[in-house]
């Protein structure tokens, strides 16, 4: 099954992204396809599930099976898919609005449920698709039409929430660092259970200031821990620009799954006889 040898191009479709020139998501797409090639699974054995947003457009740009669902529900859809098709590699791709605003509850419970899949959030700290409103990860003083002068709200901390809710693998990367991102994605997919990778991916149109990120990100100076409390403390005190694998857990993945053999329902019928 894995006899074929794969290149990144095997995972790319011929559809032209609608993204703005310079959007960080182009880099994420590159890292994803490179990581998949490295993992060496056939494109048809991979499913890429997403919600709605610029970032969520990614499934159709891959050559895998894809599902571009509704806003905020990708993790639930993917859980149903993976539990019933444990043979597939399931990747979920989201944005900071899709994943942490409308999708926040599914994020909490996906971490807790620990189904074996990989969750990638392309965090640009803005709603790109709807043209520039603050998202949960937006800085509290970022000015916009919907929140003149800024929301005044504390930015949401995805990595800490992931840890606190039970994610089994937690990492942060920067879209521009394709090599590092690819490597982390490979590890995330290989790690059992629910893996979460936040990729800082600039929105050059509505957050041109994020073009600076390439200068401010830096690689984590310490090894990943397997102690969630320690990982949380570390992340809570870093500057948010620290990249790398931050946590590798040992929780057992969600167990239920559907098999291809169909059992006999006769005993179930007999139970109604009196």
């Amino acid at each position, binding site marked *: 099954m894995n006899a074929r040898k794969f290149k990144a191009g095997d995972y790319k479709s011929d*559809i032209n992204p609608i993204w703005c020139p310079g959007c960080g998501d182009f880099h994420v797409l590159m890292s994803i396809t490179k990581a998949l090639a490295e993992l060496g699974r*056939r*494109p*048809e*054995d991979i*499913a*890429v*599930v997403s919600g709605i947003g610029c970032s969520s*457009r990614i*499934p*159709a740009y891959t*050559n*895998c*099976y*894809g*599902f*571009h*669902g*509704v806003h*905020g*529900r990708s993790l*639930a*859809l*993917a*859980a*149903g*898919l*993976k*539990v*019933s*098709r444990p*043979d*597939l590699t399931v990747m979920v791709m989201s944005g900071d609005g899709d994943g942490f605003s409308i999708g926040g*509850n*599914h994020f*909490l*419970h996906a971490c807790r449920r620990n189904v074996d899949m990989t969750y990638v959030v392309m965090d640009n700290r803005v709603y790109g698709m709807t043209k520039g409103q603050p998202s949960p990860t937006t800085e509290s003083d970022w000015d916009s039409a919907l929140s003149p002068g800024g929301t005044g709200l504390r930015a949401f901390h995805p990595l800490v929430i992931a840890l606190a809710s039970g994610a089994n693998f937690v990492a942060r990367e920067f879209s521009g660092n394709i090599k590092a991102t690819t490597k982390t994605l490979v590890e995330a997919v290989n790690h059992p259970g629910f893996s979460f990778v936040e990729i800082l991916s600039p929105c050059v149109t509505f957050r041109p200031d994020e073009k600076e990120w390439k200068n401010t990100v830096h690689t984590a100076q310490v090894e990943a821990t397997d102690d969630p409390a320690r990982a949380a403390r570390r992340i809570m005190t870093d500057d948010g620009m620290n990249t790398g694998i931050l946590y590798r857990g040992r929780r057992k993945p969600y167990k*239920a*799954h*559907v*098999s*291809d*053999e*169909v*059992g*006999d*329902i006769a*005993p*179930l*019928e007999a139970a*109604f*006889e*009196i």
Partner: protein
Amino acid sequence: MMAPLNAPLESVSFAIVGTGGAGAITAGSILQEAAGKVGWYGVLVRSVGPQIRGGEAAALVRLSTTPAECMTKDFDILVAIDWKNADRFIGDMPVASGGLVIADPNAGPVPGAITDAGTSVENCELNARAKDIPGGRENMIAVGLVAGLIGLSIESLMQVVTAKLAKKGEAVVEAGRKCIEAGMAQAAGYGQSYPLKPVPESSDKRWLITGNEAVGLGALRGGVRFAAAYPITPATEVLEYLAPALASIGGALVQAEDELSSINMIIGASYGGRASITATSGPGLALMMESLGLAAAAEVPIVVVDVMRCGPSTGIATKSEQSDLNIAVYGFHGDAPHVVVAPLSVADCLFTTQWAVHMAEALQTPVVVLSDQSLGQARVLIERPANVAFIGQRKIWQGQADQSYDRYALTADGVSPMAIPGTTGGQYTADGLTHTVRGTPSSKKSDQKEQMDKRRDKIDQFAFGDHWGAVEGTGNTVILTWGSMTGPAREAVRMLAREGRGVKLVSLRQISPFPVAALGKALAGASRVLVVEQTHSGQFYRHIRAHMDLPPDTRQFNREGPYLIGPDEIATQIRDWSSL
């Protein structure tokens, strides 16, 4: 309606009431199951107060010699273990003229509301009798009382009691027997009895099943392998039935964090190739609507069972209404063709759900099943439901290396072969955006039109066959109803027939797409139509009107919950009309 004393009856109804914990419902269940052992049919409905525990509880049971799934208007026998909180639900269970109330004289006076009509009252010191017997319980005395009055054998009862209590030890079983015997002995001394006609012995065993269980089994028969769950009254039992059942056949049920999640989980599982289902009630269905639209647009087969309860909003969770017709049919944003069906009886929950799975799979579309609390939580004695050939079968795309794959290809029947993940060459992205045949998002006029036409046509062209509904009886006067109201309407038609009034019953299982041609045929020649439904606003009536003309002489009979519309009320409507 009153049967002459002691003459064997075709049908008997009784209620056992008491505080929650007094075991009224257990008593009713034992009687029902024993009745099944001797070949009778019947239905048991539980009536409980708003308290979670310790409130009032009643078992309402009707037994009969032929299949019967709906309660009669009033009861022949009412046994009160105590009268605590009885005022709250006594209006629920009028005792028939000629009926009998049995109460413990030490539990206080019989409420006035009951003793009005031509009812007799007999005393039975249930509490004292139970205390006489070591390990005795009042509710088992009640079992004996009813058994004595209706002529149910101690053997049949002991079969049930033994199976139920065996693990508690022989002494407990024996105490049960003694209580039942004591009750029977007491009943023998009353001036009245209500013997139910014996039925010929048969080798077929009866089934004892609730509507919610029947939905679950129907799903399994239809090939469902995955379910997602978020509990809600009165649908929870569907999910609780499916959890171990699916596990036992290599499927799975996943408990979701909310309904937004459960609906998306089944969409994901179905995309993966597994027939999938969830069950909910009105508030949960409302939360699922956005994603039901996704399933329609992305053409993912799923079944959602809505066990309806009284609305609007949280309404009355434990009581029935048919008022989710609107949301099920029209509650989508945009034009999202799909299928809505409704079981016509408790037993039919099985067939209808199986049919729903079949259609979802065949049409690659969401199907909503509109059951309701009156079906879902009623327990009936029925014959084993026949096997039907409906087993969800999708048009699957079998990868062909030389061929590029268009997931949403335009085909003659509107159904496009679906590639299941893992199939080489079948990779596509399912999409809720307007898309090309390939699935690529598009804002082109032609794509929007072609795909919308396709999704409409595949459903409109489907062969629903004669499962669209049921037609019974003849006459120019027609009772037109749907789903759970079929039971009471059928009883009404029987009552009217006995009075020499021939009335035709037309009952819809297929709610959407609306079966215009079939219904038109069924109504041909009808001069009077009474549209019956359990809603406040007449949702069914408007739904029909939206799609076809009704005869000028059409009337509506509709009412909100919590009380079920009864056969007698429907019959009265017809009688009043006829006498004009």
